[in-house]
């Protein structure tokens, strides 16, 4: 599919306003694996005829990793600069594929002057599937879902990802620790940007062991950092050949007619 991606500046130049701003995020913009997810999500939006735009080079890190380390200065610098851009474009609705960007934009920008309706891409995908806006061809398979901390515990989104899986007629295999008890992938709190503290085993390896135990061939995630960590866990346990990690957007895109 040829992607037709427009920026907020493109829209503004024509005096138009898209329905959604798609907040791509740093991982979605720069990480080679996650870029595929970004493209898959754009394909779906295009197919479902959703009007959306990206900020392009005007987008900047939300500041989430800085804030979680304790660097409140850097976080607020990023937040205020971003809020200025978002308010300048009079953005109302934001969709993002990153639970960390999602949480920051939704919960933490309002007190600094940036109030938007923010949804996670799994919520939008579940809704599009439910409304029949995307036609799918079904292929039954068993699939596990790894709950992201910032989606589940942080924002109570447990159902949307599961709805996507059942709408795609796939069989969900729940992991041993799931939903409110979902085990972290080990990336959050800016852990992914440094070596882990001394310990017996890497958190991502422990999480991956549960996935291996479940016997699935495929595990769905909904977060760029879970993607990195679970893949690393599979590599380290030597299961990278037999278990595949996919983002839910990729799953939908692949099933899309």
């Amino acid at each position, binding site marked *: 599919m040829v992607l037709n991606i427009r920026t907020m500046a493109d829209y503004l130049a024509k005096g138009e306003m898209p329905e959604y701003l798609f907040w791509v995020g740093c991982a979605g913009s720069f990480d080679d694996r996650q870029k595929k997810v970004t493209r898959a999500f754009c394909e779906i939006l295009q197919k479902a005829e959703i009007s959306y735009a990206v900020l392009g080079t005007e987008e900047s890190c939300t500041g989430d990793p800085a804030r979680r380390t*304790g660097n409140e200065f*850097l976080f607020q610098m990023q937040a205020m600069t971003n809020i200025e851009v978002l308010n300048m474009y009079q953005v109302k609705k934001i969709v993002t594929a990153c639970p960390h960007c999602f*949480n920051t934009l939704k919960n933490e920008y309002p007190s600094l002057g940036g109030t938007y309706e923010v949804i996670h891409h799994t919520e939008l995908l579940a809704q599009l599937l439910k409304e029949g806006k995307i036609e799918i061809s079904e292929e039954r398979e068993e699939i596990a879902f790894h709950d992201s901390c910032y989606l589940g515990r942080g924002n109570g989104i447990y159902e949307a990802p599961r709805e996507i899986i059942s709408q795609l007629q796939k069989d969900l295999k729940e992991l041993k620790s799931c939903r409110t008890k979902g085990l972290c992938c080990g990336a*959050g709190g800016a852990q992914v940007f440094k070596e882990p503290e001394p310990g017996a085993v890497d*958190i991502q390896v422990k999480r991956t062991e549960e996935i291996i135990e479940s016997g699935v061939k495929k595990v769905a995630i909904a977060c760029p950092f879970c993607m990195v960590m679970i893949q690393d866990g599979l590599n380290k346990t030597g299961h990278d050949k037999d278990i595949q990690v996919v983002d839910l957007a990729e799953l939908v895109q692949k099933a899309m007619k």
Partner: protein
Amino acid sequence: MTYFFQFLFIALLASMSYLIAMRFKGILATIRLSQPIQLSDQPIERWKRVFLLAFGQKKMFQKPFVGLMHFLIYIGFILINAEILEIILDGILGTHRLFAPFLGSLYPLLLNFFELLAAGVFLACLVFFARRGIFKVQRLQSENHSELKGFPIRDAYTILIVECVLMAALWTMNATDAVLQSRGVEHFQAVGSFIISENLIPFLDSYSTDALFLIERIAWWFHIAGILGFALYVTYSKHLHIFFAFPAAYYSSLKSSAYIPSLDSVTHEVKLMLGQPASGEAAPTNLRFGAKDVMDLNWKNLLDAYSCTECGRCTDQCPANQTGRSLSPRKIMMDTRDRLEEVSVILSKNKGQFVDDGQSLLDKISGEELRACTTCQACVEACPMELSPLNIILELRRYQIMEMSDAPAAWNSMFSNIETNQAPWKFNPSDRMNWTKS
């Protein structure tokens, strides 16, 4: 003679009440040193929390058996203590079973009910004892969790034993009372024997009336002195939760557990730096960024530390702890409480003024522990009272990063990447749209 015991009782009651009041005053004084936070919005939502989490024990029932056992103790404690009112009035007035004539046939019914509740408490304490000492529930073992070594583990067993002994005193009191009634001893009104204690009667029946009289009085005094002593002891123990669970539930955060509140002092400076009007935020009153010691935390953090039951559900769910890292969210709570107790001593020695003792909370919690947290919020989710070890960790991290500049090199380069490249990695910001060209 009766006057003597009345005086003795009043003296005991007054002195214990004074000591307990002083303890609470000391606790509140430490909480008052802390930073402000607004947590009184949405009262209806908050009362709901109190009814669900505290009265209703909603999250305790996520482990149904433990939930039920704890419920027996909890309901027993609250209801049996209604009887304390009678005991106290009897003690002051030198009467015996003051309420019996007023309540008529309801009185034996109530006492039977209390005896059954006491049996529930007794049973539950035995189960809790077995769970710690025989079945060795992992999160309660000091061999696996060094923060439990010493006082905390002794504290846990002490309370369970004392509760059992208090219940036994209650039954002994009622059983001797029943025998004395049946012998028609003056002063002992015929209120009958009761469902549990009547089983003790055969053991007591052979004693002389004088001996029974003595046993009854000893059990009575032991029971009431035990309860008063317990109330004082509780203020030093993890069992402070029996009072603080309720305010802790009321003031628990209604926001997402992933939400981190803004630091106003930073907002003020950032706005100045960006040339924006910095009207809203008052100029910083606290000159420290983040928390080094307990008074830099907010009062809810401190209330949390006082309310913690040291149950370790948080640590049990913590991914860092599960994978052998030194971080334990329960230890964070216990360290905060320990530091508060130290501060409380400083305050009482210096007429309510805090005098720097060269110590701080960060002497108890290492940078390694703080850095191991993934901010996954599993600890907050696991806590039956929605206490947040995470909020304390984050405040300490702020101090660690902003005041001590104590960050690993990898984090420092992440910071400078965000500053110069607008992303945590070293990519050229003008390449941000390159993903569109597959």
